[in-house]
């Protein structure tokens, strides 16, 4: 589904992601872990097409298409979804209006009819229950005045509504209490289907107790320095990231 080869990404002239390779097949859940500043968000933002993150080398193929040649909106319309580590506040635009626009833009791209306000509302109400958010969140401006946890749940709500093919969650689990964490995990698990894939970017292994990954990768200084099965997450939890630093240092 997603094939990243030799990808390098820079921000403000500084190379952050270096020669990264990653292969994600349909049906898989990948956890990308790593210390702060290792380049996890840079990778996620570059995959979503953020213009500030400049791809300086490499290739990315998504569903057989050249992902890097696609605009951010075309990536979204092709089923790629990024749950932001820091969701953006949008004053004056209600969650409902925002989601209605997103749903209809994506439907139009797939040749489907526009949904009217009532249809959209019906869908949203179902999904709200899933993430245990009150209906009042629909009429509030997107993320404005939301607590940290509410913002994260709002990302999961959007994911549930848009039903992406490839979801990238950038530390959606950070800063959540255990109940909110379970809600997020449940949202992810619902998306887990043979034809979908999920990349869970996370700092901690906590969420991996609820969402079992097929592969765990360690990102360090912009490179994937270690890949293994889910047991790697437990090892990271136990031993922290320092031993990786030592191991990488020893190799370099």
């Amino acid at each position, binding site marked *: 589904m997603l094939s990243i080869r030799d990808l390098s990404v820079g921000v403000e002239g500084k190379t952050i992601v270096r020669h990264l390779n990653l292969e994600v097949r349909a049906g898989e859940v990948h956890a990308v872990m790593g210390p702060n500043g290792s380049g996890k968000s840079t990778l996620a933002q570059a995959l979503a097409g953020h213009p500030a993150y400049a791809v300086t080398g490499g290739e990315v193929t998504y569903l057989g298409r050249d992902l890097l040649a696609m*605009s951010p909106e075309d990536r979204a319309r092709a089923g790629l979804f990024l749950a932001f580590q820091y969701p953006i506040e949008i004053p004056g635009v209600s969650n409902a209006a*925002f989601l209605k626009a997103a749903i209809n833009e994506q439907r*139009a791209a797939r040749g489907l009819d526009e949904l009217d306000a009532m249809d959209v509302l019906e869908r949203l109400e179902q999904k709200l229950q899933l993430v245990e958010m009150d209906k009042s969140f629909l009429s509030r401006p997107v993320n404005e005045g939301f607590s940290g946890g509410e913002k994260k749940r709002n990302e999961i709500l959007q994911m549930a509504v848009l039903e992406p093919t490839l979801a990238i969650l950038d530390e959606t689990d950070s800063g959540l209490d255990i109940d909110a964490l379970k809600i997020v995990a449940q949202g992810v698990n619902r998306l887990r289907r043979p034809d979908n894939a999920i990349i869970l970017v996370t700092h901690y292994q906590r969420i991996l107790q609820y969402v079992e990954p097929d592969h765990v990768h360690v990102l360090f200084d912009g490179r994937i320095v270690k890949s293994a099965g889910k047991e790697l997450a437990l090892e990271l939890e136990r031993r922290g990231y320092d031993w990786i630093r030592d191991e990488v240092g020893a190799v370099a």
Partner: protein
Amino acid sequence: MTSIGAGTDRYLAEFESLERGADRAPAWLAALRREAMARFAERGFPTTRDEDWRYTNLGPLAATPFRAAGAVASLNLSSETVDRAAIGPSAWPRLVFVDGRYAPEHSSRQRLPGGACLSSLAEAMTTDPELVQRHLARHAHWDADVFAALSTAFVQDGAFLHIPAETAITAPIELLLLTTVPGALAQPRILVVAGPHSRFTVVERYVGLTDDTCFVNAVTEMVVGPGASVDHYVLQEQGASTFHMATIHAALERDSAFSTCEATFGARLARTTLTVRFGGEGGRGSLAGLYVTSGRQHVDHHVTVDHAVPRCSSRQLYKGVLDGSARAVFNGRVIVRPDAQKTDASQTNKHLLLSDGVEVDSKPQLEIFADDVKCTHGAAEGQLAPEAIFYLRSRGLDDTAARRLLTLGFVREVVDRITVEPIRSYLDRTLEARLGTERGSKEMP
């Protein structure tokens, strides 16, 4: 004779022919007109050396010869055209003016309850002479404001609305003012008198049916009686070459509540000189406006809130969206006079700059002479946040749709204040249409 101000000679000639004509103005009005004309002639059109007009050049307006509405034949409008231009359904009481002149054939003056009166100003001078004499030109500062003076010199026709004490009217009253004839000067004059504890809504709706150069000089005076509650709207969609000058003065008496909300879309040059004056304790004023401009449009607001007495509150919220090489001027003046303790005043003015070619001059002017008061003001201008644009694009909206949604979000705060249908849906519709293309009409790759 005193010196003659720039660009006034044509108006003087016009005035003389008005005086010579078979105009049966009562003596008080004739005297008032002459005084106002003398004032206008003496002052002439302001120049940018005048502090209140520093950023607004009236040269093109002063140089254009306009013909008074009486001298031109207005279009014969079909009732469909009129209905389309109106905001409200025909069930709303409605007075229609074509190029400043009352058009009874298009107006619908439903019976209003309890002695309420909605009529042309000319009519009211015979039916309600005392009330008209007591209030007409007694509020708008024609001695200080050239456009109010010009209007007063030529005051002939317009709208008169009197709602007596304790009377509530649910249906908004619409004043529909159409601009149809190229080169016309229309000077509608509106007088609204709200009796004690009355409640109603009045809408001024300006629509230009011509893109040729016109000059509309409107003056609205509103007297809000003790305990009365008046909601006022000004919805302006003049043609692209029209000069639209609006002077609005609201005089608020004890414990009254007044709100005014303006939406400006049209005209090449639109100036609003709005004054809200608190003349009795316990008054509340809410002033809001949004303007959406593009091309070479110029929108100028001079808003004055005059707290002359204690314990009144005023809220100002103005938002402007500028595209192309549009220009906005905002001067928000709050006066708190020495006696006006416990005043609570706030002022917010924000501009969204959609292109590099736009220019904004925004200036708060707080003149506070009392010590126990609460006054806040805030002005901001900026562009759409790139992070917000990317967030929307990451959800499937293209750049145009993202910018449009964010721009709608910017003005939402003003739109949300409007609860009256169909004004609310009119604004939603007009904003959608004016802020870029709808998704359906976009080209698909």
